[in-house]
């Protein structure tokens, strides 16, 4: 019994005596057999370093976890060496089993670490791709703004000229296609902004009453055109003035109502706005948009607010890129609210949402501003200097400005001519594209603001394809008076020019 254990223990160690060149003098061959008179260096390349170690006497070296691969077996061993003057002892301990277990554990651990790093890398790669997509969409949409602006404005100008009934019909189709296109570009830009985290709310005081009236007028016309009844119902407790992102709040109403009108062929569209509660100067509004249209099957309710989702993809008659509801949902969430859909197929739909606005106390200056919006009477014509390098845009703007009889316009197309023109001519207002070749509107404005006193205060309006908040901020910081985003309509343009001239 004991002998057996001793024997098995013997297989664990091998003792070798070598001279100081590495030549084997004695080996008990406990683990593997080696011939005497051979040099250890020839047994395995590990022992090559012995050439240097063995010549220094009275040293001890310990090597752990050495893989010794022989033709017949692979061993993993610990090796210790004690050197002496002429002969040294080498002790090899066979720990193959022990180290193989350790190898298995390390294998699992290292593999999973490497895999997780590869996944991280993939994620980074996906994010890069996503960023590229969003930038691409944003840039491309900007490219569409100039031609679209021209198309919108000339469409409107054309409708004021003498046309026969057939021509008027065609023009209406063009105009409606234009405004569709405008909406879609705006939606795509919004989605790109949402996805890149750049869509921020701009809070200001606005008249909720006036906004709701606008909304009713606008959508009632659209509904009536489709022979639909339009009813609205507003809670008398609604605050008159509120603080919030008016543009985005109107977008929520517009989007829900446009959808309702679009998907309804007969019956009625209803809009209800009520006050849920007020708490800590915040009003929680509830908006219900009810239609009697084709309805939405329950299985779609979960996904309808997702990007690029559209019910009945083959329904040719329906507008909407399917982005509208995703944007609405995002905006409402940002405003601390929720949106819900109740609908079943062929029974109409009800969208119910609520969101917060801040209650603003009565604000007389704002009311003043709202009343004062009309074109002021002017005794003499004002001089507008237009800096724009696109001929199409020059023509478009000239048409609008000239039609008012209120302005005379000089046009330049090079940034370097701007300052001399301001000084030579008596300019009341500068209207400039933000993309003049070789110049940025911010730099040009900075230059104007450092002119002598009689010129430096000239208002500058930028016509911009950049709709991002940080760009607008940058322009304003440089001293730009106002920024009008392309595409714009003539009414907006004139209103903003008059405001800047005051």
């Amino acid at each position: 019994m004991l002998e057996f254990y001793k024997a098995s223990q013997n297989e664990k160690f091998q003792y070798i005596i070598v001279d100081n060149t590495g030549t084997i003098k004695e080996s008990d061959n406990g683990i593997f057999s080696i011939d005497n008179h051979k040099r250890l260096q020839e047994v395995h390349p590990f022992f090559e370093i012995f050439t240097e170690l063995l010549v220094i006497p009275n040293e001890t070296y310990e090597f752990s976890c050495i893989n010794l691969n022989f033709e017949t077996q692979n061993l993993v061993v610990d090796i210790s060496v004690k050197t002496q003057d002429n002969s040294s002892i080498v002790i090899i301990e066979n720990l193959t089993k022990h180290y193989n277990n350790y190898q298995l554990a390390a294998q699992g651990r290292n593999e999973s670490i490497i895999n997780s790093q590869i996944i991280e890398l993939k994620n980074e790669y996906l994010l890069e791709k996503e960023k590229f997509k969003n930038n691409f969409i944003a840039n491309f949409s900007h490219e569409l703004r100039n031609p679209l602006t021209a198309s919108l404005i000339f469409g409107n100008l054309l409708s004021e000229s003498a046309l026969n009934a057939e021509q008027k019909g065609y023009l209406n189709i063009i105009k409606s296609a234009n405004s569709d296109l405008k909406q879609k570009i705006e939606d795509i830009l919004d989605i790109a902004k949402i996805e890149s985290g750049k869509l921020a709310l701009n809070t200001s005081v606005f008249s909720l009453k006036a906004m709701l009236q606008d909304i009713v007028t606008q959508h009632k016309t659209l509904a009536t055109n489709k022979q639909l009844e339009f009813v609205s119902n507003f809670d008398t407790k609604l605050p008159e003035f509120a603080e919030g992102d008016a543009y985005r709040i109107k977008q929520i109403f517009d989007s829900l109502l446009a959808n309702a009108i679009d998907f309804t062929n007969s019956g009625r569209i209803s809009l209800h706005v009520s006050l849920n509660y007020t708490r800590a100067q915040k009003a929680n509004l509830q908006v219900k948009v009810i239609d009697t249209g084709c309805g939405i099957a329950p299985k779609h309710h979960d996904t309808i607010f997702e990007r690029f989702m559209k019910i009945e993809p083959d329904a040719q008659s329906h507008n909407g890129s399917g982005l509208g509801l995703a944007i609405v949902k995002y905006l409402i969430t940002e405003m601390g609210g929720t949106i819900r859909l109740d609908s079943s197929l062929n029974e109409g739909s009800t969208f119910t949402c609520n969101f917060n606005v801040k209650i603003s106390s009565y604000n007389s200056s704002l009311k003043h501003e709202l009343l004062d919006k009309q074109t002021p009477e002017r005794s003499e014509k004002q001089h507008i200097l237009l800096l724009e390098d696109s001929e199409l845009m020059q023509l478009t703007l000239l048409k609008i400005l000239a039609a008012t009889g209120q302005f005379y316009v000089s046009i330049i197309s090079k940034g370097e001519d701007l300052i001399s023109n301001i000084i030579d001519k008596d300019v009341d207002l500068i209207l400039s594209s933000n993309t003049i070749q070789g110049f940025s509107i911010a730099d040009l404005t900075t230059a104007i603001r450092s002119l002598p006193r009689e010129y430096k205060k000239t208002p500058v309006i930028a016509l911009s394809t950049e709709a991002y908040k940080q760009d607008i901020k940058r322009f304003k910081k440089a001293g730009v008076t106002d920024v009008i985003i392309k595409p714009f309509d003539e009414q907006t343009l004139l209103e903003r020019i008059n405001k800047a001239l005051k």
Partner: protein
Amino acid sequence: MSRPKKIVLIGHFGVGKTSLIRRFVENTFTKDYKVTIGVHISKKEIHIKGDTPLTLVIWDLEGLDDITKMRTSYLLGTNGFIYVFDLSRPVTYENLEAELEYLKTNYPNTPTKVVGNKMDLVNKAFIEENNGIFTPFVDYYVSAKLGSRVETLFTKLAEALI
């Protein structure tokens, strides 16, 4: 004939140290990964400048993510280092400068070649983008898989040893 030279490969696990040695010694490659524990030692005779034969004893160390934890007994009598990192995994070259500094202080006058392996997984643009990180340190961009510049790497290091 001069004495055999001991070359030690170091770097994080999975960067391709074992694969580079396999490529150099046996001219083979496998995409399977077998974790090295402890050390494997192999030998190859080469011919350098003007046909001088030289034996290289190549130590393939277990990969570590901290160079200072290396078993120092493995490094006794080292003549040259090859420091390997994996171009496709930033963690393996995040501390490149510090690790090389550590080698330089603890093993001064030991010729060292620094290589970015798995060149086949990245493109030129990637290398250019990371110019600032790589260029000051890297001697060769190699691929054990394709065998590119593996021979050059070992030969140039060997030449620096005599």
